């Protein structure tokens, strides 16, 4: 899509979408959102970037193969489950902890780590498929 307007606006749009996807991911436990939807938003962002700047640029921006992100996600989700075993509770039992940051209580938990894993899997897989389909010159 060789449009100057699109190419100019795309990076801005992509940046906003990526930030929004992380926001959606993190609010997911209490408000509508979560890893799956966040991953979809991030993947859409990357698809737009690929359309505007070319697949090669999108791949360069990613640094790693998109499926590597998916693999990392599965591993992260699995590790979040394994962590429970170290605390002598069944696999995938949620572990919670919280700390104070600037006067606000911030909760961290293994379900959150798990959800981040889901985010990466969805992002990586959809991006991989979309980029491969956009790419005409090979290198899937």
């Amino acid at each position: 899509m060789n449009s100057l307007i699109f190419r100019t606006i795309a990076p801005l749009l992509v940046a906003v979408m990526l930030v929004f996807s992380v926001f959606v991911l993190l609010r997911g436990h209490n408000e509508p959102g979560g890893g799956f939807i966040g991953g979809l938003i991030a993947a859409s962002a990357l698809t737009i970037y690929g359309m505007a700047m070319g697949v090669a640029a999108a791949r360069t921006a990613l640094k790693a193969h998109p499926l590597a992100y998916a693999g990392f996600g599965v591993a992260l989700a699995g590790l979040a489950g394994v962590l429970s075993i170290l605390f002598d509770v069944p696999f995938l039992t949620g572990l919670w902890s919280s700390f104070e940051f600037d006067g606000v209580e911030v909760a961290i938990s293994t379900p959150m780590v798990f959800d981040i894993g889901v985010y990466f899997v969805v992002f990586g897989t959809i991006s991989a498929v979309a980029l491969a389909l956009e790419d005409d010159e090979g290198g899937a």
Partner: protein
Amino acid sequence: MEVTPDIAIALAVLLPFLAAALAPLIHRLVGDLSGWVVALVPVAAFIALWPLLERTSTGEVVRVAWPWAPSWGLELSFLIDGLSLVFALTIAGVGAFVLLYSGAYLKGHRQGRFLGFLLAFMGAMQGLVLADNLVALYLFWELTSVASFLLIGFDHTRQAARRAAIQALVVTGLGGLALLAAGVAIYAITGGWALSAAGDLKGNAAYPLLVGLVLLAAFTKSAQLPFHFWLPNAMEAPTPVSAYLHSATMVQGGVYLVARMTPHLGGEAIWNLTLMAFGGATLLWGAIAALLQTDLKQMLAQTTLASLGLLMLLLGAGTELAVTAAVLYFVAHALYKAGLFLVVGAIDHGTGTRDITMLGGLRDPMTVSFIGTIMASAAMFGLPPLIGFFAKEEMYAALALGQLESLLALAALVLGNGLLGAIGLALLIKPFMGQLLTTPIEPHEAPVAMLAGPVVLGLLGIFLGFIPALVGELAVAPATSAILGVAVDTHLKFAVDLFGPAFWLSVATWVLAIGLFLRLDLARSLLRRLATTIGWTFDTGFDWVYFGIVRFAGAVTRLLHHGRLELYLFVVFVLLVVAAIGPLWLMDGLPRGPQSLDLRFYEWGLVGLAVLGVGTVVYARRRLFAILALGVQGLAVALLYLVFGAPDLSFTQFMVEILSVVILALVMTRLDLDSADPRPLEDWARDGGVALLGGVAVTTLLWAVIEGPFDLRLSTFFNAHSVPIAHGHNIVNVILVDFRGLDTLGEISVVMTAGIAILALIRGARRQRPVEVVPAEPQPQPKRRAARKAAP
């Protein structure tokens, strides 16, 4: 250090597997000495197991159990009694010499792998004879089959070796499945996996089934008629393998199974007569087929069949004397047959041939092999005072006084032993006596490592013959007691009863053997002519069945996997319709449908938008337009979700719809299709009909679900527990990442795998593309192609 039974079991069963993994490394470190090093593994097992003889000889049963899968009630349990100990000591003892021999027999880089396979087999075989748990028994049983497959096919560049390996695996694998079924049946009946706790199963209704399954497993493993054909073919394996797996140990697995099952299943006519009939037939078949052969290894293979049949026959007879004879014969056979195989390997190694007609006069160049053969042949011939003689005396004594079937069995035994004796004489006299014949290699003696086995095993056969009372007390009587389930005293003693019928039957056997030996060439040519006349063998029968199954599978695959995408989709959607409506219609559960449609105006608007989208999909002339219209319909559905209070679902639906439109559009440009849909009218009607039916079916199903009572239990549970347990207000998300986290973990793995598969598909399509399109040219306008169909 006190060697407790669990250490002994670990040394016998687990250490070989560990050593198997290390064998290639050991070979790299010590080179051609590896045979000597790995032989220490069975020696350690032997030394650890030996003291237990004292305990089992008093009738004690030693049990060792380790936790395995407690939640399934499974423990890795082992049982050492007279029977399993005799087998375990034989496996360890013969195994030591076979490993030593292999180190010298097979030189070069493949030795490490070969020794590894042999060690893994040894561990599996020890596990098989020591296991008490039925699951473990099955596991080790199959592991021996796998090890046998690897070892038969070790020389995998030869087609014959590959075929023999597959044949052995298929036949013994069939038996393995039968054993698994038998194990499950016993578990269903008794409620436990421990075989020792199974008790007497004869009264059970499933008894005939159990007998059939166990005997099928035993007959395939121990190569009984009509499954015998794989064993002679298994001689494609290197000679130490034939000596160890295919005569002394693995093929005895079936015999062991029958012996082990005798307390649980034995005693009824169906068990005893089946064993006697098949055992007797195999005995005679093998003994006669041995006469046909001129290859020394094939002769031995056929006599092994005969000996296995003989053991089955004796176990089938089932009397105290017969079982004693079987145990004695098992030990004697393992000693002499392993020795003979090892000598044959030495002859092959030293002269370059195994053909009995090309060998002669080897007594001078291969004196030590000659001595080993004398001892083994004498045992096979059954001369006193070798252990083989006592085994023969026992079996004759067992059957001499009895019913018709006993007398028939006795006749088969005398005839079979006579034939085996003749082969024993032929193996000794033909290659070693007479004129020295010229052979492919100048005859020379084998190295020490290859001679240790035949000589020591032969000497052992003689030595045990001098102490029959002790052998009886320590090994034979405890094993017999374990098989029969009652305490048995030994009656073996170092004496020959010159006036008993057994001795005169022995004499008759010898006369028969010598007579047959003198007429061996005549018998061979007669049998050859007979075999040519028949022209059909069990081996060709196997091929017929085996390749028949392969052809059948091919035909079924071609029928179902025809490669026409529109037919696949047609079948899938028709089945979807049937699955959705069929059960409702059959069980009278068709919904009544909505009574009134009470929708607000904006809800009507959204429904209208969706209908408009779908209608546009159908009427659109251009594909890109149809895809966009489909997206409009999807967005309308997403808005409906939002209106009915499911923001999460709606949110996701939005994203999925957007990405679907993008990806579908990308796929369409890649497929290089016509921009319009060129389907003929009848295809259009068929696809449209299926689409309409699909819509009706899904709608009906949904209505039926809505009309049913709404089960609130899950909603209540999640509402109540989402915040206190999982600290989250968004129930959907909490379910996904916490309550049903394992499901999600599985789903994301599937998502990733699907991604990999899609990339592979795209890459495959790309590889074919350059044939059609010249890549250097700028892409011209999409060419119009012959009518290609796309899925709607």
